[in-house]
């Protein structure tokens, strides 16, 4: 027994030494990216920010801006689809270099990563069945509904702040499925996504979205202490001033939401 305990202790010590050794960063983040010759951008399939064209290339407002930013650093861009729940793991594990996917700047996001300046406006909206939509046009009226929200999302934060009971689910699309299946009365999701997912011509023709719970902003997330944040802020400013940012935004129909840099 004693032997077993001492073996376990040795293993724990060895692990913690490994962990300590890794906390020292050898080079700055921009040097790391430049040495790799590529900027690995973590995304999800999220029109109109990041999605695939018919040829299978990633396009969208965020994708085009990320490609331009990588270009300005003199490196290639590589898009990697990630599980949104694991974005911080992916960043810290260096399997991606930034999260650039219409990410709402919540307090949780800002505490887990270093974020760029906000570049785009968004809102959390309430998705309900169309037949009852008339009754739920105000924030006050939705307080008695049961909500489904994406775990860790801005929607969850807003709904919880209003003191409404909610069921956290794996992703925003699952939250909408809950409403369609009648297992929840309503879902709180991104306005941009709601516009793409529910209503006429989608698989959820009998759902619609009503009131906005808040207004919020999108930003890009980097590893803690990364010097790429200031590089990106400079890049956003420059591309806003020379008009390329607006031109890209118009291409994907998000020009009304762009924030002045």
């Amino acid at each position: 027994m004693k032997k077993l305990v001492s073996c376990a202790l040795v293993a724990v010590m060895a692990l913690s030494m490994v962990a300590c050794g890794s906390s020292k960063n050898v080079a700055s983040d921009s040097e790391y990216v430049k040495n790799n010759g590529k900027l690995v951008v973590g995304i999800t399939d999220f029109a109109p920010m990041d999605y695939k064209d018919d040829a299978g290339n990633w396009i969208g407002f965020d994708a085009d801006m990320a490609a331009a930013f990588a270009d300005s650093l003199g490196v290639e861009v590589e898009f990697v689809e990630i599980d949104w729940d694991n974005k911080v793991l992916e960043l810290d594990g260096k399997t991606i270099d930034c999260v650039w996917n219409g990410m709402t700047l919540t307090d949780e996001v800002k505490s887990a990563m270093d974020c760029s300046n906000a570049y785009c406006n968004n809102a959390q909206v309430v998705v309900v069945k169309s037949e009852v939509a008339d009754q739920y046009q105000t924030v006050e009226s939705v307080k008695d509904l049961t909500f489904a929200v994406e775990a860790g999302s801005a929607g969850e934060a807003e709904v919880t702040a209003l003191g409404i009971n909610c069921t956290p689910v794996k992703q925003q699309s699952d939250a909408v499925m809950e409403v369609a299946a009648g297992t929840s009365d309503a879902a709180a999701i991104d306005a941009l996504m709601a516009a793409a997912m529910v209503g006429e011509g989608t698989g959820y023709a009998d759902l619609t979205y009503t009131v906005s719970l808040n207004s919020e902003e999108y930003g890009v997330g980097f590893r803690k202490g990364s010097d790429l944040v200031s590089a990106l802020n400079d890049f956003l400013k420059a591309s806003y001033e020379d008009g390329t940012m607006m031109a890209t935004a118009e291409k994907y129909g998000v020009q009304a939401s762009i924030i002045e840099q």
Partner: protein
Amino acid sequence: MSQIITQFPIVFEALNVGFLQTLKLFIITLVGAIPLGLVICLGSMSKIKPLKAITKVFVWIIRGTPLMIQLLIVYYFPGLALNNPVWGGGEEGRFLAASVSFIINYACYFSEIYRGGIQSIPVGQDEAGMVLGMTKSQTFFKVKLLQMVKKIVPPMSNEVITLVKDTSLSRIIALQEIIWAGQAFLKGSQGISGAIWPLFFTGIYYLIFSGILTVLFAKLEKKLDFFR
């Protein structure tokens, strides 16, 4: 309904791409885990005490923790704790990490099935082999192995069919297998958004695939039916 018909070709193609990943992971796991399982099995039955103890603890850890956690550890640990993301961020790295996790996990389960198979063979056969002047390995490979194979076919088929479905766990490290491909249409992909049916349709793939495996295993059992 008409919507599903127009969506079907696009969804079908995307699901096939996803299923190919599922199939690849399934095959690689079997190719790696079936021999590795035998190695672990021999380790856990070894007469060398420390080797036996280490193997047993290893099997306990792998069988005692969820495969999902193992996937997360194998994929993220090198970058998080060792500051060296050996797998890289791309699709290939994710596939490799998933393969390694699955092979180790299934090898441990297989090793216990093998052990059950080997130990179920009466000691009398070892003694008979010795009397006939055969070495231990001769007795194992020439006498016991085929009997063991016959005995482990039913439990192995159980594990293999479980593996078909377990491959879906690899989506936790964003490997784009078939469930991932089906779910993409919920949120919006390739111009289709809010489509619920592709996710449920993936179930058909699993059903057909496990159906084929069931038939194959039944055939194998029949083939081995020439002795008892």
